[in-house]
């Protein structure tokens, strides 16, 4: 169960930075714990928080930690602008405001008893990492786990040690690819859709969860459908400019949906007509 949002949904709770670890040259994972010795916050895989960097601004960031760990929250952030840069350069002990968790999350209940296919591109692995933790933590509740992960180059791969550790788990297949490999890279090279021919899938008994750049998700969804998955068994995590996170402001409206409140996770069946529209 997710923790109840504070009485005023716009009021952040004070958290302290416990650690900042470098994942890639521009991507960092922040570990935050509440300032008061309370529960750090339960969340469902796929949910996000609004992180407030005092004096700079507020950002929607997916929770990338283990849902079984209630003491702290992990966020993996790519430094791409002023606010994200301010967030990843916070020192240990610094204060950060946290609102949330918000959003619907991945369909873990629908996935129980079935194979789980996780397809991630770039930093899209961050919101999917809690799914992988959840499946591995409750191994008997799920079928096979297939993780297909693509990044731009070997330097851009997140959680490299964990990927290797997950690959050693029973009933788990982890395939990693990069769009461009240097001569020292011994792994697979090609876009993430090229991994499907090496994946051992049982489409009729699978649920797929996809996160990455929107165009990548479009191609991946088509690939999953062509392999026999139903459109209702393919879920995408959408991204738009979220501000209030509770459906008041309308900044993240996407067609008839508010990404913050109705999503960010949606079945492909619902998103398909919108994804194929120009300039939406």
């Amino acid at each position, binding site marked *: 169960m997710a923790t109840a949002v504070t009485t005023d949904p716009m009021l952040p709770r004070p958290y302290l930075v416990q650690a900042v670890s470098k994942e890639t040259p521009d991507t960092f994972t922040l570990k935050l714990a509440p300032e008061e010795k309370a529960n750090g916050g339960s969340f469902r895989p796929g949910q996000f928080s609004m992180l407030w960097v005092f004096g700079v601004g507020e950002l929607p960031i997916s929770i990338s930690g283990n849902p079984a760990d209630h003491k702290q929250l992990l966020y993996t952030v790519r430094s*791409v602008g002023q606010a994200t840069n301010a967030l990843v350069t916070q020192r240990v002990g610094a204060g950060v405001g946290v609102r949330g968790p918000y959003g619907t999350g991945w369909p873990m209940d629908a996935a129980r008893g079935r194979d789980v296919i996780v397809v991630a591109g770039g930093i899209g692995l961050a919101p999917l990492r809690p799914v992988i933790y959840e499946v591995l933590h409750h191994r008997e509740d799920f079928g096979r786990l297939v993780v297909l992960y693509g990044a731009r180059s070997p330097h851009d791969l997140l959680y490299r040690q964990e990927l290797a550790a997950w690959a050693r788990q029973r009933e788990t297949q982890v395939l990693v690819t990069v769009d461009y*490999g240097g001569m020292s890279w011994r792994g697979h*090279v090609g876009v993430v859709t090229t991994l499907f*021919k090496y994946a051992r899938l049982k489409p009729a008994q699978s649920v797929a969860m996809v996160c*990455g750049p929107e*165009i990548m998700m479009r*191609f991946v969804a088509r690939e999953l459908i062509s392999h026999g998955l139903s459109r209702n068994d393919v879920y995408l995590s959408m991204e738009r400019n979220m501000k209030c996170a509770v459906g008041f402001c309308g900044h993240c409206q996407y067609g008839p949906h508010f990404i913050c409140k109705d999503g960010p996770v949606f079945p492909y069946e619902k998103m398909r007509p919108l994804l194929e529209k120009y300039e939406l």
Partner: protein
Amino acid sequence: METLERVIADHPFFSGLESYYTGLLVGCAANVRFHPGTYIFKEGEEANEFYLLRSGRVALELFAPQHKPIVVETLEDGDILGWSWLLPPYVWKFHAHAVEDTRAISLDGKCLRTKCEQNHDLGYEILKRFAQIMERRLEATRLQLLDVYAIK
């Protein structure tokens, strides 16, 4: 021991091919093995064969002046390596090197082209299969060109 005919028939590229055609292909086929680091072919060389990969991994690499070579695609068991043998001027456009110990069936392109000219049904079967692979690789290349993970 597996016969060449069996290995060709079991390879995904020739899945469902009539045994009569598989019989024709065997005359152009040979078992080959490449140790890690070995160049299978290089850009500019005459393209006289293609490969049905059975195990291992092959990297297609591209280089440009003042840049380190980059690997633009890897191929593994079940994949096909090379289609330059099929279209004039029959010259390789990339380097290909074995990343891992790689086993394959090599098919002699000149031999196969002659058989395809003599038997257009075989030629059409082969072209259809290569067209599917080209279509999939073209789509993947378009997605790769978008550089979707770059900061926009």
